[in-house]
């Protein structure tokens, strides 16, 4: 029966080409749209998580209260042990220590005197450990503009903007002037080994990246860290899970009377990110939902029109003795076949488009530059993202909506009288 119907569909282009085309396009658009919205949302959260918030992060209570001042005198101590505990107790995340510090970069001339100076926001991240995923999540290999990644403690990467302002290039030595975790004056020499561009608006304007071992030497922070950041292994931010983890951790570990006790924050707790998370989730759900409904109506309508267009054929088939049930079932089966073919092709097309946008992205750097004062870390390039749900989301509009439309149209079969059928045959 399926073979018979498939042959019929293929031979009658009016029954195959247009419906399959419509289903394909609708499914492809829905998949691409969903993938793009997911990509933008996850990309935004991931960028924020990588640069500043983590999916969750642990710091001292005192550090949290004064975090704008980067108070490393309130840093976490014994971080190796803390990280080990977090790994054991929360294996669904990977954990990494970080030191965030500010200061001045002093560029010497040939005689060692100050040639130029500029403010710097430096991050000591785990670049050198064997199992560290920092290079991966920072996408440093892709974002490296020139030079190479640091290979030892006193090597540094500068953002292209900072390097340009101080007229630095790979191989130059700069002196960090800052404060140790004991608030003592400190100077430390770093060798610039490369420059990077994050494409995250103003976030990297004064940024320097060093390995955490270099930051520890510079700031006298042996086995200490400003924060310990946690990320899900898949790098997908699950707000509900993050909030639950934060509550559970703080109930067990946090002491409200001790400013040095550890406290956990979820991504949504930082810099109005909670509002952003809620807004983006609601907006994405709404937009994709509306799009899905529109797509389903279109496909439903197509199934309906397709059924109505074939009244004559159905009349003929009933006239020559086929039962109403047989006709109805064959129509539904046809729509299932068309829906499946369209959904398959549409899913493949949608995934291809999504994959393309995932790799290439949509660059809107110029627009982001105008948002120079924003506190949000927001990517200059929109990337789509292929998520598992994209593989099946097309079934609902592609198959179900088409079949529902056909079923609705097919109801008429049962309502028609034989006399009416013969009358339609005459015309």
């Amino acid at each position, binding site marked *: 029966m399926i073979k018979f119907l498939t042959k019929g569909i293929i031979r009658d282009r009016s029954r195959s080409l247009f419906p399959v085309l419509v289903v394909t396009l609708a499914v492809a658009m829905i998949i691409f749209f969903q993938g793009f919205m997911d990509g933008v949302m996850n990309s935004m959260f991931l960028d924020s998580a990588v640069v500043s918030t983590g999916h969750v992060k642990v710091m001292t209570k005192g550090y949290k209260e*004064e975090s704008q001042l980067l108070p490393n*005198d309130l840093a976490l101590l014994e971080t190796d042990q803390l990280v080990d505990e977090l790994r054991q107790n929360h294996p669904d995340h990977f954990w990494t220590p970080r030191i965030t510090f500010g200061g001045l970069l002093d560029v010497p001339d040939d005689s*060692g005197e100050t040639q130029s100076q500029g403010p710097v926001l430096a991050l000591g991240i785990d670049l050198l450990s064997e199992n560290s995923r920092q290079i991966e999540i920072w996408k440093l290999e892709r974002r490296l503009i020139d030079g190479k990644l640091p290979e030892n403690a006193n090597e540094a990467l500068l953002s292209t903007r900072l390097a340009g302002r101080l007229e630095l290039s790979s191989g130059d030595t700069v002196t960090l*002037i800052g404060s*140790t975790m004991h*608030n*003592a*004056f400190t100077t430390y020499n770093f060798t610039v080994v490369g420059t990077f561009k994050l494409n995250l608006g103003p976030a990297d304007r004064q940024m320097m990246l060093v390995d955490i071992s270099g930051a520890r030497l510079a700031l006298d922070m042996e086995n200490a860290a400003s924060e310990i950041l946690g990320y899900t292994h898949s790098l997908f931010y699950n707000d509900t899970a993050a909030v639950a983890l934060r509550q559970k951790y703080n109930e067990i570990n946090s002491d409200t009377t001790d400013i*040095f006790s550890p406290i956990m924050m979820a991504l949504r707790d930082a810099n109005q990110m909670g509002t952003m998370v809620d807004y983006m989730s609601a907006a994405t759900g709404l937009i994709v939902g509306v799009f899905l409904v529109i797509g389903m109506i279109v496909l439903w309508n197509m199934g309906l029109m397709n059924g109505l267009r074939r009244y004559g054929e159905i009349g003929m088939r009933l006239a020559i003795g086929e039962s109403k049930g047989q006709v109805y079932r064959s129509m539904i089966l046809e729509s299932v076949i068309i829906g499946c073919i369209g959904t398959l092709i549409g899913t493949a097309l949608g995934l291809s488009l999504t994959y393309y946008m995932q790799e290439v992205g949509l660059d809107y750097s110029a627009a982001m530059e105008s948002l120079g004062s924003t506190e949000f870390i927001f990517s200059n390039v929109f990337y789509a993202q292929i998520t598992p749900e994209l593989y099946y989301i097309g079934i609902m509009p592609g198959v179900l909506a088409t079949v529902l439309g056909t079923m609705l149209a097919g109801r008429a079969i049962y309502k028609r009288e034989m006399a009416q059928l013969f009358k339609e045959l005459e015309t």
Partner: protein
Amino acid sequence: MINIFISFLSFTFLLGQSNDMSVQEIIQAMDDNLNAKSRVLTSKMIVHGRRSSRTIESKNWVVGIDLAFTEYLSPPREKGTKMLKLGDKLWTYSPQTDRVIQISGHMLRQSVMGSDMSYNDMMEDRPLIELYEATLEGSVEINGRDHWIMLLDAKVKGLSYPKRRAWIDKEYLLPMKEELYAKSGKLLKTSTMDGIKKVQGRWFPSRFVFKDELKRNSKGTEWVIDEIEFDVDIPDSRFSKALLRK
């Protein structure tokens, strides 16, 4: 560091030796006493951080108000760090980087060795008679000793502390307690001193406590003078940039 010390000491003399002296005479007498030709001192700075305390030892050579050289003796991380002040310029040398760096601009507002004192505090050591107008606010007895309460208003622009209030011991002529204010009237720092001893004919404190009131939970910084000698001959070569690296 000596400059801060001297700056604070200056207030001592602002108020004069007796009730009969005018405020101007008191300030002049204070400057005459404090602005010694030169000083050499060894001191300990105990910085009480929010987590722990650190002791930093240093030796200072000072000539007048324009020349000062400081060498840090301990702890190991700070040992060998040197600072040179020539007029209104300040350089620091760190052996770890082998760099001589001029401290200027907003860096002058940074803390010296994590203490409650800034580099600006070190730089502002001109005679108080040139910087402030003094007004006597009254007298008070503290711990059984008579003190004047003196308000000082800046008469030049650009000072870190445009307003100060000092509680001056009438016998020692030292500001046993001081409050340093911003132009807005916000309290920025406080200082106290104790362990007053007579050194080469002048009353001299052996311990200061400075507190940055803007630092939350700050426990202050103690500055203990171990040895001090006035009017010592110090060669000019002590104040050369070349000596920073040696």
